[in-house]
């Protein structure tokens, strides 16, 4: 019958619209139960394999839980024991960086000029960073890790190159990457 396809399409839109609210009520009824929030596990948003309705996340009032491997810009890890940067200024991150946005100055002994194993200065231009994660992947000392903070808008370009925000404590790394942190700790022992 001519026009049947159009009616079907309209029905489908209506069905999706209605199911969104039906599932909202369902997820509200089952709130607090374990294992109901598939995928994103956001209260009020049924997002997952069995959902029939729309699962828009109303950012910023609702937030998806980010997966552990989610990566944004890198940060340098401050070791919990020594309270110093873990970085040994080996320069591997600066070499592998595809956009060459990591700048590291290696310390030198003032008398002999021999290289020391810590950085004097380190910069990372986050306005250039392509968030590929190579630096964290290739760092042999677990000294540079990928951050999860993505709300980093700035009004000026110097705002993207600030060294003080780049160093973060080890506990922060352990908090955002629990599995990877446990693996690293096991490997070091």
């Amino acid at each position, binding site marked *: 019958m*001519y*026009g*049947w*396809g*159009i009616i*079907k*399409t309209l029905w*489908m*839109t209506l069905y*999706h619209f209605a199911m969104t609210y039906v599932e909202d009520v369902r997820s509200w009824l089952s709130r607090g139960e374990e294992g109901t929030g598939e*995928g*994103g596990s956001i209260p009020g948003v049924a*997002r*997952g*394999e*069995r959902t029939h309705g*729309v*699962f828009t996340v109303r950012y910023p009032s609702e937030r998806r839980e980010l*997966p*552990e*491997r*989610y*990566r944004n810009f890198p940060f340098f890890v401050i070791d919990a024991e020594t309270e110093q940067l873990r970085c040994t*200024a080996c*320069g*591997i991150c*600066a*070499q*592998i*960086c*595809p956009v*060459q*946005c*990591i*700048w*590291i*100055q*290696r310390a030198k002994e003032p008398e002999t000029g021999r*290289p020391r194993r810590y*950085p*004097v*200065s*380190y*910069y*990372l*231009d986050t306005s*250039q960073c*392509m*968030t*590929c*994660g*190579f630096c964290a*992947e*290739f760092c042999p000392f677990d000294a540079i890790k*990928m951050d999860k903070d993505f709300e980093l808008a700035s009004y000026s*370009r*110097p705002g993207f*190159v600030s060294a003080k925000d780049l160093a973060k404590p080890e506990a922060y790394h352990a908090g955002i990457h629990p*599995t990877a942190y446990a693996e690293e700790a096991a490997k070091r022992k």
Partner: protein
Amino acid sequence: MAHLPLDMPAEVWERLQEHFPGALSPAEPPERGEGEDYPQATPHRMIRAVSRSLLMSRPRYEGVLVHSRHLLPVLKFLRDELGYVYLSNLTAVDYPEPLEQFPPHIDVVYHLFRLEGGGYVALHVHTTRDGAILPSITPEFPAANLQEREVWDMFGVRFEGHPDLRRLLMWEGFDGFPMRKDWREAYYEEEHKPFRSRFPDGGDPLYAEERTPSHANIRQSRQGLLDSSPPMDDEFSEADRLLYERMLSADQDPDKPLKTEEMILNMGPHHPSTHGVFRMAVRLDGETVRHLEPVFGYLHRNHEKIGERNTWLQNIPYTDRLDYLNGMTNSLAYCLAMEKLLGWKIPERAEYIRIIMSELSRVVNHMLAAGFFSNELGLYFTGSLYALEERELILDLFEAVSGGRMMFNYMRPGGVAADLPDGWLGQAKQLVHERLPRKVKEMQSFLLDNEILQARSMGVGALSKADAIACGVSGPVLRACGVPYDVRRAEPYGIYERFEFDVVTRQAGDVFARVALRFDEIWQSLKILRQALDQVPEGDIQSHRLSPRMRIPPGETYGRIEAPKGELGFYLVSDGGANPYRYHIRATSLLNLTPLSQLTRGGKIADIVAVLGSIDLTMGEVDR
């Protein structure tokens, strides 16, 4: 067999030698007379003294070196007699320094395939760097059209006899040929990464690029123009003048009964249905399209030049940005090409992960293509949003495994970057077994059964089987014309031969066939996914420990995969260093644009948008 050019069947080589004894062997005495057609090409001693033995003296130099004079006959022979009908890739390599016995030259490479499957035949033609000129093969092989224009644009090789040799990606009047080795871009810092200024002495990165000596290295001159171009007039820019001249001269019908005023209309560059910054100059007779010329390059960042500055590994995240919907397959193609040069085998588990990722990527791409096609027909965003919903769930899977939703940086030579996290397979199985079949069916029925969509797309923009092959289109566009050609079957890579799936085709070749075929392919992808997800073995995911400045043994290769949009190939030349000597991408979206003018001719202006949507292109890949 040891001295046979790599990757070429013995029978092809023998037949070639039999038919072109002079062109391929060193026995040919120098001939002066013939060269007069291409006067600048004759100074070469080497193009006369081409031989198999010379070729073999360069390690792993693939294919046959042909005299430019014999190029067209050899190509025609390969096509007509030996069945190498599919001209897949055409590119050039610049050698500013003498290489072995060859003086400085530009090497133009042609890769041809058989539709029955199998490897390629590579042809090399040399030309001088000054006044580089070669015969054009576009009149015989329409697939070469855009690629020859690109080689002219990037290397300055002029193709004699090309119907429309304008610059492709740069603008007319641009100074120099960017892919030549001695050309330096603005903000040029050093020949290769890593740059010495970053480590060990570091510094302040703020506005560092402004401090490089060549930060304003951009000039406009007439050097890039054809010598025959008349001086610029004020009304149009040089590029537009050449474009409009081309459009008005092409396909004029002298016997038109009624003399009507034709007009040229520019669709784009900012047009909501062009998937990016893409301009189509259309010559219209009323509402009927008489001729269409695609204009692009607005997103051009010279990906290939960046690729040659990068180290091998640094290119992987860049490939994600080509066709930004299918980062997984882009980097897979690049890694496969690298592995071909390295001769690495990858672990079983990594093979399965790669297949799962590329098939999921295909589902995403095809659903999105169909969704955005409905957008183009005037459904607005409703159709796209149903596709985007499923895409979100698949991107959740990608994000969990790689950390990025679009810029994955996941594939590595020798395997993949990270293992699947706990519970990932279960989630993927649930999606593939339960949700996707339901949703694909739903979407298929609401799109393809819709009478408006059928009326708009059936019989519109039809491409014949022969034209599709000649134009070198690939992927769903080719298969919708009834050509069962799929790299996964024709030249299986990875472990595709283990899976059961069909190469689906449709016969009509029109817009509807292309859209419907994408749904057929989703079903096949789901079939592969169901098999692969059940079979994933335990084990390693990486066969080699990668070093940041890994080197690749000298050689060249052309590696290709069946990306969701079609055949995606990487032509890599290594000189043994830490950087690719040549890094060329056979961009699927670009090559699928070759028949665009043909597809839209004679149709209405509203059909252009439908045709463009059915081709499914990403400007990130077209412009590179």
